[in-house]
């Protein structure tokens, strides 16, 4: 059975090395029809860059140096711009974090939605407008007709994000990529948007790739989870396994540093010492080495690969995958 999206060994680099841009190293994952994959990691780990590269949306100076991204069997990275434009906005769509800056401020909502429809479907303008209105209603915008004539800056944050979802849905995509869609929204609005996404997923039988740094959101939405750190995938698991028995030390540390409203007063959040190394592309061995509680001298010497770990996930850590019994001992600290 072919995966809907199969990303194979993608690496991304940026010329000139501008501060914000994060190289991505040998990332692979897949998404099947109808399922939800969450890519989770902290800022700078490369999760956004990975999906932007798949969509062909890398900005200045970024290019994919290796790998393939097979969507419905065809390699997106090998397509011409025209071929890619056939797929983008149509069967493969994306929504972004800041809906205000992601919508053109001088065009009405209606014109931006109909533009999408007209680009991919052989309908008349009038028909496109009718469809646009229906879409806006479907995503929960009251009085869709009036909204069509409004400009993005006159809507609230939650409403703008619904517009983005409508844009992404206009041609019944097979896969929607959502890059931190609710990070900027209030928590009750976030709950509304997430519920909407789940409903739409069911209705359109759509796969969802959700990028987030919120472990709570991962627990709510994901079928499977990809954990990224310093440009690499460090763990891949189904969501229950990930929370029940996380394998990679980073994942474990991350889960232990997340507070919850169900915590008792004596819980102490675990914090990860140190910071992400700056030029991690040049690190030979494990990139988490300088912050890992279980680090051993060998960890810094060999590049780590993603291997199956006990419990059912895959982890990029030889200690966990090869010698799991060592985890139970207190490991000597190594810098």
């Amino acid at each position, binding site marked *: 059975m072919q995966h809907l999206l199969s990303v194979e060994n993608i690496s991304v680099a940026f010329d000139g090395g501008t501060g914000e841009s994060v190289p991505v190293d040998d990332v692979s994952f897949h998404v099947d029809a109808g399922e939800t994959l969450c890519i989770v990691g*902290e*800022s700078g780990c490369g999760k956004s860059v990975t999906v932007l590269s798949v969509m062909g949306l890398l900005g200045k100076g970024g290019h994919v140096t290796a790998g393939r991204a097979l969507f419905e069997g065809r390699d997106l990275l090998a397509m011409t711009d025209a071929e890619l434009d056939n797929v983008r906005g149509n069967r493969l769509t994306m929504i972004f974090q800041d809906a205000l800056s992601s919508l053109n401020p001088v065009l009405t909502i209606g014109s931006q939605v109909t533009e999408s429809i007209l680009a991919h479907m052989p309908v008349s303008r009038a028909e496109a407008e009718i469809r646009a209105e229906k879409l806006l209603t479907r995503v929960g915008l009251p009085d869709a007709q009036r909204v069509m004539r409004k400009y993005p800056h006159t809507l*609230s944050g*939650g*409403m703008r994000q619904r517009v983005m979802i409508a844009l992404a849905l206009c041609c019944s995509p097979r896969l929607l990529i959502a890059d931190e869609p609710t990070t900027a929204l*209030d*928590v*009750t*609005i*976030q*709950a*509304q948007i*997430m*519920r909407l996404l789940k409903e739409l997923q069911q209705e359109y039988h759509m796969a969802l790739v959700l990028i987030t*740094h*919120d*472990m*709570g*959101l*991962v*627990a*709510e939405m*994901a079928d499977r989870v990809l954990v990224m750190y310093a440009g690499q995938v460090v763990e891949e698991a189904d*969501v*229950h396994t990930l*929370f029940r028995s996380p394998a990679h030390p980073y994942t474990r*540390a*991350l*889960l*232990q*540093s*997340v*507070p*919850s*409203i*169900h*915590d*008792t*007063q*004596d*819980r*102490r*959040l*675990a*914090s*990860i*010492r140190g*910071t992400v190394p700056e030029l991690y592309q040049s690190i030979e061995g494990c990139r988490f080495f300088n912050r890992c*509680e279980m680090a051993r001298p060998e960890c810094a010497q060999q590049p780590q690969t993603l291997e199956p770990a006990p419990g059912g996930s895959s982890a990029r850590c030889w200690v966990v995958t090869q010698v799991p019994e060592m985890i139970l001992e207190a490991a000597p600290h190594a810098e």
Partner: protein
Amino acid sequence: MQNDTPQPPLEPDGAQTLLSVRGLIKQYPIRRGWFPRTVATVHAVDGVDFDLHRGETLGLVGESGCGKTTVGRQIVGLETPTAGEILYHGQPLPERLRGGERGDRTRLQMVFQDTFASLNPRKRIGDILGDPLLYHRLATRKTVWPEVHRLLDLVGLPANAAQRYPHEFSGGQRQRVGLARALSLKPDLIVCDEPVSALDVSIQAQILNLIRDLQHELQLTYLFIGHGLAAVHYVSDRIAVMYLGKIVEIAPSSDLFFAPQHPYTQALCDAAPVPDPEERKRDRIVLSGEIPSNLQPPAGCRFHTRCPYATELCKTVEPALIAHVPEDPGHMTACHHAQRWITKKGALQA
């Protein structure tokens, strides 16, 4: 992972009320026209009362427009209240923030959300921390550097940080500087305005732990403002939930989330994603509609437009913030129907 022995929670000294807020109101008029005519008013804070006891942390949560940041800013003196009073040790605070009054005002300090914007990018860390000390005569030119180093050490930064500029640090480190700055004038009370919202998850944990540890070490009192329920819960002894300028519920933090009495609190709890996939199927309230604008707050109970249980009474009469269970005076709610929820233990049900 720095998982040392858990610190026992600090018992708030009930007899010592450090700060009292009564009837705090802050309105911003919107003026239009030739001769400035007030066409509308933003009701940012519309009647807030609470006490802060020495040594405790009061969390203030709520979504956009609820006024929590404005409350914090008024306490610290960055905004002047339109009405109401703020009493510190029982005395009203001097109105003016600058110029002359160097007494009580310096005891109330603030830590800000945006670590980039709240540190002067052209000043070295050492100056950022040292200048207020010199200005307030808390140190002389001779004693200021040791004091700066002491502050840096307190927040876990190396001494050489004093020579560097804010942009050379990460967000978490800058927030440590923010804390050090707040601590430099030896305050009694620190208002933390969303100090961790802009930070990564693992760094949030570091800073939250630091905030808690400093409280024990220095006997601080905090007003912790945030919109992340879990983070606020972690540091707070009591939590007040705000909606559209008013407090709708206030209770000890464990009670608040275990047995909320207000539908909005319940909705917030339900909306906050829980990092446990087994919790997915739970019943929950998802509020409909948008947060109303605070230009025209709804009549009666402000929450009635989104409340799944609103009745006619709710639309016309504003509920008072009172303790509905006499044995539990610390848990107050502003809801006409709070009694209904209390009889059912735990989660609200329709």
